[in-house]
């Protein structure tokens, strides 16, 4: 058992974790953040993707103890009140959601991509999402959603300029 401290969706967390506990268990079972999904527990499907210091990681392959001192963002941490993050909005409007089980991981992986590459090509999007499996959509609308989010981000940042 080890007491760890980290930032979760902007809030400070202090929690005791078992040495073999994985981050997805801590998030889902102990902190009640069930938006992070478990599809395989083997690092194959990407459903449990969360952001660690802005980068996508598979929370089924991260020991909870390794979250010590890091900044973790889960799907619950993206929207501001009722206002969806542009990536969430784009997924919703583009029809990029079907069963929704891969959606939290997809959205976070997409956000991480756009944060480092605001204007990705289709191929760059497909590369960035290739670790997140979706069995429903065939990816077409997911790729479109990321393109749409990129566009709306650009519109926003242009609008900010005087």
């Amino acid at each position: 058992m080890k007491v760890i401290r980290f930032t979760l969706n902007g809030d400070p967390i202090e929690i005791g974790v078992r040495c073999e506990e994985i981050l997805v268990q801590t998030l889902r079972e102990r902190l009640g953040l069930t938006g992070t999904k478990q599809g395989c527990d083997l690092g194959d499907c990407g459903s449990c993707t969360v952001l660690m210091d802005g980068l996508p990681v598979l929370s089924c392959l991260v020991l909870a103890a390794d979250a010590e001192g890091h900044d973790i963002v889960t799907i619950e941490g993206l929207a501001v009140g009722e206002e969806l993050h542009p990536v969430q909005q784009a997924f919703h409007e583009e029809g990029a959601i079907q069963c929704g089980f891969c959606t939290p991981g997809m959205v976070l992986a997409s956000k991480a991509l756009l944060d480092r590459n605001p204007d990705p090509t289709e191929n760059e999007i497909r590369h960035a999402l290739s670790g997140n499996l979706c069995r429903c959509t065939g990816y077409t609308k997911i790729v479109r959603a990321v393109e749409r989010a990129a566009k709306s981000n650009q519109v926003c940042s242009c609008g900010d300029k005087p």
Partner: protein
Amino acid sequence: MSRDFRWIGKPVLRVDGVAKVTGAALYTDDMQLPGMLVGKILRSPHAHARIRGIDTSRAEALPGVKAVVTGPDAPVRYGILPVAEDEYPLAVDKVRFVGDEVAAVAAVDEATANRALSLIDVDYEILPAIFDPYEALTRDDVKIHEEARKANIERQVSLTFGDVEGGFAAADYVREDKFFKAAASHAPIEPHSALAQYRDGKLTLWTSTQVPHYVHRTLAKVLGLPAEQIRVIKPALGGGFGGKGEPFPLEFAACLLARKTGRPVKFTYTREEVFLTHRGRHPMHMKVKTGVRKDGTITALHFESLLDGGAHGSYGVVTLYYSGQLLTGPYVIPAYRFDGARVYTNKPPCGAQRGHGGVQPRYAFEVHLDRIATDLGIDPLEIRFRNAVEPNTRTVNELRITSCGFKECLERSSRKLQWTERRGRLPRGRGIGIAGGFYVSGAALPIYFNPMPHSSVRMEADRSGRVTVFCGASDIGQGSDTMLALVAAETLGIPPEVVRVVSADTDTTPVDLGSYSSRVTFMAGNACRAAAEEVRNRVLAAVAEVHEVPADQLDIRDRMVCVPGNEGKTLPFSAAVVLAEARGGPVCGSGSYTPPKLAGSYKGAGVGPSPAYSFGAYAAEVEVDEETGVVKILRLAAAHDLGLALNPPAAEGQVEGATVMGLGETLWEDHAFLDRGQHASPNLLEYKIPTALDVPHVESILVESVDPEGPYGAKEVGEGSLHPSIPAVVNAVYDAVGIWLHEVPITPESVLKALKKRDKP
């Protein structure tokens, strides 16, 4: 074509979209109840063995273990088909595949539950096992199920329609080919999960099921509990594709253990267990023989299929019939013979997977048809046009075809890839191919005989102007809740966002048979429209009475009840509901849908008939690397006749998703087993489903033939849209490098082998 719709035909946002995109949607495994225990299942390490005894005492003695159950705790046989009730919740006497469920434990946490499994002692007597379907056909000394009359044959079927011998005699050319399509598995991203609570003699089960109604009635039977004491609820569900379309051991085990311990018990399968549960696409060995005239007109068809069913019946008898019954379109087949068999083998059971039964034969026939066209020097597109089925006709096996946009599908998909200009003219290594398909919009008969409607909707409008739809239909991600909201909204003249949908809860919603056979939009959509019309009539009758205008002059638009030509009398929908409620109590409507009697006159005619059929034609463009054998899909134009697109983005999503699932089966997916029956790849690393990098941007084309009986003209879109994708690619490979591939998946190895054979015949 009427385009006078307010919301139909325009993009409508999913009713559960925000919940899903924010992580708020609750799936079964997301639920926690106070005092909840963790359940785990012990599985057989042997492919075929007699159970001499099970000793659970060491497991029960482990601190933290609350209960253990085994087969004798519920020795009741069940099965999704009444003709194939050959399963027990947990094995009784025998195990039939590696992974067969033997015992279940409930413990305070997962680690304790897993430790308890290792402390259960099972005394097995190992029996010889059968893995090969041809061996299963003939071996009488090994019986996987004692009930099989001959060897391990579950069912054999022969059907003949029209003058088959005469048809072949009249042919100018006859060709015969053999094909094999490997097994595939659904691989939904959400693993199966079930949570049971037993309180005050009442059982509640939250479960990731496509068929709450069938689970409900099977639980009653297996647990010996009256159905009225059981409630089945389907929370948000993370993909099914047929893989969650029948009752499963985790559901029974959760209920048995909840009853035994008095505490809630949750089971969630590991990814390996999802693969072992399977019920996916049958491996199918097929023989196709077709007679044609010189111009390519088909005169007769003989199709034979052998289905490797695995250890249980599951949906297999239906799969077997579908394999034959769905070859009589989308081309006119004047004479047809079908011989098929499904056998038991010691592998996880196969069942229904998206496009059920028709996918493998469709691949075989479409490639076979291309070979015939090539032999005769006819363009593959042209041979399809020449034989294409027409609207308002009947197939040789008595399927009633009403709306049919097949020719338009052929035209539009082929045009997208510039078929005429490019087929046979691309540089070596590049090619295009085309294939067709058709599929049911729901089966005309239910799985078990009952006189109920196939789908029912209860609807209530309240004083706030909100409307609630209650329906048993199971939204498994395809968006049926949104479809119900949309149909209710369009019918009532109120926006979809003020319609609330309560679905898939056996306590509160009227029956719908479930999400299978691509039936929900057609059947629940029709039921919903009927219920909404009743609500509308109640509301308008009240307004008519108060304002002394004939009800048929009234209309509801954008939440306002208007009297044409008299704007002073316009009032909000909510106020109109209050008037109606004042005149007759709660403003409710009920609607139901039962398909017309469509089954043909012969034995076996129950599988195949549907109130409407979808049609499709896909054109694929591929690149084949002759050095490595790797096939890359560059483009895929998917034209699907869905009657009418109620919500176009949702419909496109179905076509895109089904097409890509088909591409996975074409190139990689092989649900295979090792020589002692162990699963060869029970994880998503080795069982390769397509990633975003592997597939092209699918160009979906929605063809609208406006079905006369579908809700606002709609018919199915989610399953038939898988059919043409496999043969379109295989036919494109021929155009690229001149090889025919008679086995799917088309691995680089098989491509290289065929290239070698092409060069040195």
